[in-house]
């Protein structure tokens, strides 16, 4: 193999005494100009960061965080599961007995199916909000609760019929 020696494409100009002093002058003036701006920020500007675990930011009302399904108002229409682009909503519903009491949601829609399973895999969820917009009874909503980390992937599957998840309706960690 032949030996290779490359030369850089960026040309370096010859240095004269005048240029040398001019360089120093330019560097000092522009750096001091920059330092002036930095100093203005260092003193006289209020801190913009918050100390997170002690101080928590309140998210805007329509912020899209953890999903919550109010299972009592759910009519098992499957629309959320169809709209979901990542297919993370699992619904099982059985037909309601004819003899059973007729129940209605809070906005008056008749419930014709018994919800057996309503699980959302929160680890898969991409928080796009498409499921909440198609919900006819508006029982599936995004909450502003953003602290729900778990130790295992399995525990990210939230079964909204289980009492411990249902009690998270208004939960916001404080």
């Amino acid at each position, binding site marked *: 193999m032949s030996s290779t020696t490359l030369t850089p*494409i960026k040309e370096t100009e010859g240095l004269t005494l005048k240029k040398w002093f001019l360089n120093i002058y330019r560097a000092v003036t522009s750096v001091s100009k920059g330092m002036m701006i930095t100093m203005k920020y260092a003193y006289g500007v209020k801190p913009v960061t918050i100390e997170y675990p002690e101080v928590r930011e309140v998210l805007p009302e329509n912020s*899209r965080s953890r999903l919550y399904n109010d299972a009592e108002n759910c009519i098992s229409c499957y629309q959320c599961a169809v709209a979901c682009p990542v297919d993370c909503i699992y619904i099982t519903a059985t037909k309601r007995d004819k003899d059973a009491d007729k129940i209605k949601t809070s906005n008056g829609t008749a419930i014709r199916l018994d919800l057996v399973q309503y699980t959302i895999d929160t680890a898969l969820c991409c928080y796009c909000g*498409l499921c909440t917009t198609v919900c006819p009874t508006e029982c599936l909503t995004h909450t502003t609760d953003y602290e729900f980390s778990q130790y295992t992937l399995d525990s990210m599957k939230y079964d909204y019929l289980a009492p411990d998840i249902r009690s998270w309706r208004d939960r916001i960690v404080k």
Partner: protein
Amino acid sequence: MDIKNQEKLHTDLLTMNMGPQHPATHGVLRVEIKTDSEIIAEAIPHLGYLHRCKEKHSENLDYRGIIPYTDRMDYLAAMNMEHGYCLAIEKMLGTEVPKRAEYIRVMMAEMQRIASHLMFFGTYAIDLGAFSPFLYAFQDREFILRIFEELSGARLLYNYIWVGGVWNDINDSQLKRIEKFMVELEENVKKYHSLVGENAIFIGRTANVGVLTKDQVYDYGATGPMLRGSGIDWDLRKTRPYSIYEEFDFNTVVGVGAKGTVGDCWDRYYVRVFEIFESIKIVRQCLDGIEEGPIMGKVPKVLKVPKGEIYLRTECPRGELGYHIISDGTKTPYRVKVKSSCFTHVSMLGEMAPGQMIADFVATIGSIDIVLGEVDR
């Protein structure tokens, strides 16, 4: 062998990998470089570390479900990604978008452009060894993200622009806050430019580095600030207006080689930073022109796009983004091909690198302003 006689010494190029975990490659880009000590002889970019099969996924999703996926392409300019996609679908459907929605869309797209360019400004300063400009830029970007969060509910991946309009309406207090912030931002960006762009060390690192001539950018098909940085006046918002851009009065920023040759890293930096001012102009005109009215046009509940195909391109912060959508008349598209500008720009690294020092190469990668999410999709 006589050591003093250097010509007889056997030397060879050293092959190295820069990345994928290199902080200066902005994500997961691996560049295989062949070097002679500090000087690069050849650079080969390797892509695909962030490939998520977006185009294949799109073939199995309904037209609305694709919007969250387009967000995830260029996650720093998600509004612009959605905007292009929705424009393409609307053109196929023949939907008329209400005027208010159009104004909100353009305003959001321009604010996203500001946020994206601020991000470039911050990370480019970090690449060249200055840390505090990054924090200043983030302070201003934070306001924009806050407005987006209040409107759409998310900070980065909005799903805000929908086929036919936008999701939520903007209220007067938010408009006032934006107006107030634009005054602040204009002053701040001037300050930042004097802090970084006029700095002697910054000029020394970027002027005459990574020069792209007009012929080179034409050959590779570069778009956006890369093209304008090389002195070509081409902006889709101006030359091929889409949405309602023809109503607005703004200038395109073109690199003139103020600190070195035309098409060097400093010019690309200059184009991006001064585009912020032009975007501020557009946002102000939006604030003046916005009118009351509905925010959603008439769109069927189940979207079935008529048979046919379309290619639509929009001007995104990083260049032109093209959507080639083929519909077979069903609920899901037959094909959604995305032409990304970053993909083109990454391939230009091999053209710029030979003969550069490694430190200059870092400056060159930074000046391209790539987002690997858009390169690999």
